[in-house]
């Protein structure tokens, strides 16, 4: 009734390979894009931009990145925080070394640097598997954080060891620094998110995506039918780190503006992004969005309800928040282990059959 695909026929394989083969979905996608690009920038204020939208957009990019590695290629990584730090520090070094270059280029280059580092730390994945690998990626996490903390070159020998983003622009519009406009930073991140999502989608629906999924589902069989596991895994590490690096660069330069590596890119960050990916749905780009939105909004929502509406003491609310987030994560996994994306899929399937139960 509400959701039909009948009568929506495809006459070529190109059409069948589209991201949104169902017309209804396609229109909805265009509508969301239009709202994101044309409506929200006019409504946005500092609070929405800095407290909700920017973190959402940036975490969504990181989640897409991790989803490629964990959701598509099956390599659980707990080094996301470390890789985000690489993106941030690369961006910082580029920004300060080449002030006149556009931020766009810096952010993309930062992604590229992170991809290289990612490949390096991906090398052991050829031998180490499963949770052993997950724990092994913590080596990247701790080592990178230590390195950025330890070597003054990375923070330009500043006395405090922190890095702060100087003012930089794109086509004359300020993107970093204190004097930015909410809409500008928002749009900048949105462009990166949209680009990341499209690229990630393209990568995952074609040859590379299948290579990754084959490795994820059964690596031995994949190798026997002709997948080079080293290349598959390393390309996943590279692609994943690229996006994670971009998100780290944005996280530092556009969102926070100043970071200290241990605090901003500590192990908690790794877990947070992993949560997003799993709650959203492993192996789903949409899931990365959903997971990021959920984990950015939930604490804020709980805080608004607890502190602003109910007027409870902030610490009790904060403890309850932990309890609720924890319980919700477990509840979600129980209801739908494959995440919000799967929940959405099942809902659609039900709608399609509606009003018949099966």
């Amino acid at each position, binding site marked *: 009734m509400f959701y039909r695909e009948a009568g929506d026929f495809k006459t070529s394989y190109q059409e069948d390979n589209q991201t949104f083969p169902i017309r209804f979905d396609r229109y909805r996608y265009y509508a969301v894009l239009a709202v994101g690009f044309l409506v929200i920038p006019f409504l946005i204020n500092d609070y929405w931009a800095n407290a909700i939208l920017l973190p959402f957009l940036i975490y969504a990019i990181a989640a897409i990145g991790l989803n490629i590695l964990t959701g598509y290629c099956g390599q659980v990584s707990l080094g996301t925080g470390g890789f985000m730090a690489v993106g941030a520090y690369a961006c910082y070094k580029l920004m300060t070394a080449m002030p006149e270059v556009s931020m766009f280029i810096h952010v993309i280059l930062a992604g590229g640097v992170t991809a290289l580092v990612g490949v390096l730390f991906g090398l052991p994945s050829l031998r180490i598997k499963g949770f052993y690998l997950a724990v092994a990626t913590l080596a990247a996490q701790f080592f990178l954080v230590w390195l950025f903390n330890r070597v003054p070159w990375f923070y330009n020998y500043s006395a405090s060891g922190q890095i702060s983003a100087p003012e930089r622009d794109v086509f004359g519009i300020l993107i970093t620094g204190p004097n930015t406009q909410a809409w500008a930073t928002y749009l900048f991140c949105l462009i990166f998110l949209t680009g990341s999502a499209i690229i990630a989608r393209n990568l995952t629906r074609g040859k590379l995506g299948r290579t990754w999924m084959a490795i994820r589902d059964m690596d031995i069989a994949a190798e026997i039918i002709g997948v080079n596991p080293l290349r598959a895994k390393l390309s996943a590490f590279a692609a994943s780190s690229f996006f994670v690096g971009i998100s780290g660069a944005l996280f530092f330069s556009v969102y926070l503006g100043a970071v200290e590596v241990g605090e901003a890119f500590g192990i908690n960050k790794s877990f947070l992004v992993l949560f997003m990916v799993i709650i959203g749905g492993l192996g789903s780009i949409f899931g990365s969005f959903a997971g990021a939105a959920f984990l950015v909004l939930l604490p804020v929502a709980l805080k608004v309800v607890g502190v602003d509406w109910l007027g409870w003491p902030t610490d009790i609310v904060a403890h309850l928040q932990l309890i609720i987030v924890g319980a919700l994560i477990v509840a979600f996994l129980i209801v739908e282990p494959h995440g919000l994306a799967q929940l959405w899929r*099942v809902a659609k*399937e*039900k709608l399609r*059959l509606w009003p018949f139960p*099966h």
Partner: protein
Amino acid sequence: MLDIAAGTETQVETLLEVNNIEVIYNHVILVLKGVSLNVPKGGITALLGGNGAGKTTTLKAVSNLLHSERGEVTKGSIVYRGKRVQDLDPAELVKMGVIQVMEGRHCFEHLTVEENLLTGAYTRGDGKAEIQRDLDLVYTYFPRLKERRRSQAGYTSGGEQQMVAMGRALMSRPETILLDEPSMGLAPQLVEEIFGIVKDLNEQEGVSFLLAEQNTNVALRFAHYGYILESGRVVMDGPAADLRENPDVKEFYLGMSEEGRKSFRDVRSYRRRKRWLS
């Protein structure tokens, strides 16, 4: 329906009764659309049908393993010895004497063959000596297992794993065994042996069997009663001897036609089509 074991004309008690059950996976996929069947005490009941007919699902519904596959019985009832067992824990069902040998072996990879067998005796409380006796019994059934008793089950061959799974079930001294495709992947000699064991257990120890099989030929040779399942429904049932003589069964499940057995090389020139399908 007849609650009669083939060959004997005496009325026997129904052990397991499945009444018109429906099973749905993942809340949306309807797999069993009303399946009813009876397993008499001391009988071997075969459940036949093509791929995806729902044999495995039926067995899992009985042994309550559906939950862990995100499936549920939405309609109908399953009664064992007069007791509704749908809401029981699988472990309790094993204690009641119902054990399933799962399709696709499912050995404990990291345990040795012998440890695998011993887990089968988990629910038993009758002492080491008894368990040891049964272990020896299993080894006499499957001498190959004795040779490989110290290897990790994960490294044994497909057929050896099948033996482990079977032996493990026997170790629980069951009253009813749900056997899912026991012959799959076994050498012909071994298939005979396994069914021989089934027959032995049935006749000597009075163990009842519910047997899902693709190898109709063998299954109908050993079973007393058979049900044929197609797309989640029982389409035919009757004493095994009758089924064996049924022309449709002969044609589609036994591969015999009027002219006798066809060579597999000839398949390119003909194709069986079920009368009741298209």
